[in-house]
């Protein structure tokens, strides 16, 4: 069948690199956009063509709809893949792409609009029979929030109605904190999403974050590829993901999957997406939201299902029919993904940037690494801090953890602080190993998880000294 003539990737970093690869497999040329500070970034090196979008701040490049559309059109693309973040869940963008006679590789603007608005999404999901958390759907009055909290029980969670990724999301433990948190959440929402509406919902304590990956074609065929568990989070951003979840029995999996498939068929979803759930201690599940894009952690599903989800998205967006039935989806083994972010776990996960002076990549059997970086490249301060993803797979969770430990031990990166030492600690933590995890895991164990020594390789320290003596021509310590 005919797929696309040329695809424009409106993203950067590891996901842009990842998205180039299946296009290459399908012999579809790829064009990427880049901002000034990304001129030498890896996605630009890997693509067939590259077009400058604008200055480094995202608002003037990767978020500039006009610049992206112009770049895609001028380079002769007939489809745009948005990745995650940036414009990936912006229905206006999807609409504008369509208007320019190109294909937006993702669901329709209509579906995105519904799913992008927490309140509308909850309505739509409820209507299809999906359970949702008790929530307050529009907040303008702190008193109202306090009344809601008192009704459903503290703590509660407040967040921007638009956007995802946990930005501006805050846990509110008592009525006294409501006012300050509300103001700050608003500010973040305005800054990040240009929209200040706030949403409050019950916080499920010790809840587990479980999400279902699904694929859908234009012919109302929907299948799911099972769940991922994403409970290891810091500041509501996922750090470790795995598939399947050790929590779900086959029966529950089937039940949740059926709910997902029905709801997505009802709404007319096309390509790939994810429905997120929070599962409480009693095994009750509540839908949180539907992510209308590729997820960072799609890799673990790929490892156990054998699907290339982005390749599938290209084909589904091009109009291909899903031939596989749900019963044909076979999930095998266990997969784990760790996110290597440029941030300092010891210092409240504050971002770290600078030049990557050394990089040793992961290789070997049953591991996969997705990188947007290379040695000598400088991590710019403008964007998300995700540098790389490392994934492992094995016949069971234990094997996957063993392989992940091995991979993390080999992976080495100097020049910026990363989450690697924290990830190593998590892989060794008895609760993680036993599968006793929940969304508060990192927060509860932070002291132990970050009690590692910053380990720069000794030779590098000594070399720094040699450099200093060589530059000065004398040893200032021994004069």
């Amino acid at each position, binding site marked *: 069948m005919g797929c696309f003539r040329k695809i424009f990737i409106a993203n950067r970093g590891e996901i842009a690199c990842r998205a180039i690869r299946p296009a290459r497999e399908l012999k579809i040329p790829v064009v990427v956009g880049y901002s000034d500070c990304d001129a030498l970034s890896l996605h630009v090196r890997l693509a067939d063509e590259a077009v400058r979008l604008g200055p480094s701040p995202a608002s003037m490049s990767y978020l500039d709809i006009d610049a992206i559309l112009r770049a895609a059109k001028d380079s002769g693309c007939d489809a745009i893949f948005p990745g995650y973040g940036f414009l990936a869940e912006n229905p206006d963008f999807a609409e504008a792409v369509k208007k320019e006679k190109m294909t937006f590789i993702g669901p329709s603007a209509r579906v995105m609009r519904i799913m992008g608005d927490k309140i509308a999404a909850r309505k739509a999901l409820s209507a299809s029979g999906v359970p949702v958390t008790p929530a307050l759907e529009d907040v303008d009055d702190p008193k109202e929030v306090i009344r809601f909290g008192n009704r459903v029980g503290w703590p509660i969670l407040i967040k921007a109605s638009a956007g995802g990724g946990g930005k501006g999301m805050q846990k509110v433990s008592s009525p006294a904190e409501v006012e300050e948190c509300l*103001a*700050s959440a608003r500010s973040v929402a305005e800054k990040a999403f240009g929209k200040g509406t706030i949403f409050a919902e019950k916080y499920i304590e010790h809840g587990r974050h479980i999400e279902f990956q699904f694929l859908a074609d234009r012919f109302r065929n929907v299948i799911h590829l099972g769940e991922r568990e994403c409970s290891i989070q810091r500041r509501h951003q996922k750090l470790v993901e795995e598939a399947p979840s050790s929590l779900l029995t086959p029966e529950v999996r089937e039940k949740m999957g059926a709910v997902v498939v029905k709801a997505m068929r009802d709404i007319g979803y096309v390509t790939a997406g994810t429905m997120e759930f929070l599962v409480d201690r009693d095994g009750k599940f509540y839908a949180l939201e539907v992510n209308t894009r590729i997820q960072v952690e799609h890799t673990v599903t790929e490892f156990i299902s054998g699907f290339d989800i982005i390749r599938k998205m290209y084909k589904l967006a091009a109009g291909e029919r899903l031939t596989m039935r749900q019963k044909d989806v076979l999930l095998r083994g266990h997969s784990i993904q760790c996110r290597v972010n440029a941030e300092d776990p010891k210092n409240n996960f504050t*971002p770290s940037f600078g030049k990557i002076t050394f990089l040793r990549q992961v290789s070997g059997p049953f591991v996969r690494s997705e990188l947007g970086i290379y040695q000598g490249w400088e991590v710019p301060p403008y964007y998300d801090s995700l540098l790389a993803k490392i994934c492992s797979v094995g016949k069971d969770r234990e094997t996957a953890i063993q392989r992940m430990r091995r991979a993390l031990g080999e992976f080495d990166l100097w020049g910026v602080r990363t989450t690697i030492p924290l990830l190593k600690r998590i892989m060794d933590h008895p609760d993680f190993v036993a599968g006793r995890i929940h969304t508060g895991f990192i927060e509860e164990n932070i002291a132990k998880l970050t009690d590692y020594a910053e380990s720069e390789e000794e*030779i590098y320290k000594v070399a720094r*000294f*040699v*450099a200093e003596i060589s*530059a000065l021509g004398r040893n200032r310590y021994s004069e």
Partner: protein
Amino acid sequence: MMGGGGMAGSVKKKEYRKILKTVRESKAIWLVGTGPRDTGQSDFKNRFTIHDLERLLPVYDASGYLAIDSHGGARLHQDMMNNMIDPFEEARLFALRMPHVLTQTLVRGTNLWGYRMYSRNTVRAAVESFLPTIDVWRCFDFLNYVPNMAPVAEEVLRAGKIFSPAISFTESAECTDAYYLRVLKEIVSLCGGTKDIILVIKDMAGVGSPARIRRLVDAFLQKHPHLLILYHRHTTDGLALPAMAAAAEAGARLFDVTDDAFSRFYGHPPVRPLVRYLRELGHEVRFDMKRADEASETIRGFIRNYERFESQFKGFSSDVTGHRMPGGAFPSSFEQAEKGGFLDLMPHILKGMSYGNRIIKYFDVTPGSQITWTTWAGVLQRFHKEGGEPNIKRLFGVLDRFFEAGERFDELSQADQNMLLRLYAGATDDLKNLLLGKYGPLPFGWPADWVYRSVFGEGWAEKIKAERIPSLPLSRLADEDLEKAKAAMEAEVGRSVTQEEFVLYLMHPKAAVDFLRFRERYGDTTVLPTKVWFDGLRRPGDQVRLTIDGKPHVVCLVSVGEGMGGVKDVVLSVDNIMHVFHVDLPETAAARKKVRKAAPGNKGEVGATVNGTVWRIGTKGRVLKEGDLVRKGEEIMNIEVMKTENAVKSSVAGVIREICVTVNDRVEEGQLLAVVEPGIE
């Protein structure tokens, strides 16, 4: 039986009493090698690297030495300050590589390896931590005040190691045999006899005439026939060899020596000439000359690395019998004089000292030698500044008249008296403490009243009455709060510290903290060959091979930049991978430091939590300015990094005294953002 193998086979380490018995019964002469420590200290400013010393250790181990002087004195301080060596790691290495030879440290009474008097619990903690690696504990006091040796003696003897009390020796009218016998009597009583000790006659300046030394050794052995006596002698005046021979004739059984290739002017006599001479005189000497050849050959291969640290003042000097400056202090005083730009005053300073040690009487060895040096360097600089050479000549004239008048101050003219009263006008606190008995009573009594008048001014008499301690200053020293000191160190270092690190901090707080910071940044630099340690890599293509944890590494210089903007870019290939290192030139480093940092211990100082841009001061609802009240936990500023907001909160309630940044400033982690004066709830 001659030489070879040291204590190997016959006596194992740890059976220390047995070792001393063997030495005592052998009737032979035994040697202690001072190469690593005292030689380095006396002639090479203690700069020997582990890299070089390490090559000597197996040779020393097989040479037949009883012990190697490898630790303590000033080296502990300089290891941390200049050599970037962990003194514990060094001690362990020496103990490991010399299993057949005893390791020896030098401690300054209750000052241990530092410059102040330590309380009993501190002494215990410090001694305990080095006991596993140090066998012989040589201990002296610059006042020969034996109670000051007691805490160390007790710890060492209790642990069953060898205590080696040293009597500070000099030649003067007061320093009679009777005086030294009095000191020895106290020492023997402190150590419960002579069985577990090696007594040292510490001739640190190198001033004893052969006849004087022979007499003293003889006097000691008349009293205690089984006493093991070691004669420690610097070569300064050139008479060391005959003096040692005289001591041996009188029955001294141990000598401090150095390798021939290490011999200079302020250290110790060369080992091979001494051994040959003693053997010619008919003494049996436990020593393997072949090993000594080997050691000297090795030394000649590296000693030129240290030429730059040798004294400006070369050659033997009989003047030492007047000024009595000890070996270690002599070259370093010349160095200080050169750095301070008063090298031309050195002859006057040395002459001044020879008057000084007749006015205030103690022994010129640490800390006494430092007191003498700072006092007289100060006096001469002051008198020179006030009236040049003629003024100095006048001063020496007055001092000559004073001694001619039998040290009777009152018999001098009014003008002479006035000049003498100005002599100690710039007295340091150390000199004041000395005169107030804070180090212990002076060995030959307190100086005359006019000295106190000169040092303390008009209130001198009351000062003596109120503050001078007649004896046992140590008993007034309360135990230190070690928990608190450790907490202070940990606050400074920003992490928990080991007991060893803490001991280093107790000795030298600043040097220890700086050293730990250095290690954190540069790792263990003792893996570097000496040339690279001192000079780095010189030309592109130069490379250095290193071994770290058994793995080989190669660092190769690719290029050194021009030094634009105060930074030199150095490109190194480290294990085949290119790295660019940005090296701040000294000016830049100084300028960088000017970014004010929030003091971690001061809760009122609000520091940046991240590197980023301050985009808001206060909160959306409340712009903050200086003078505003803030609650504890209230957000004071917000820093944006990668689109995330990072609230900076006040950890105290109070008034904002200072806001140090403005909106849109880029700030670095730890930078001082605001100062809150705590107090108001």
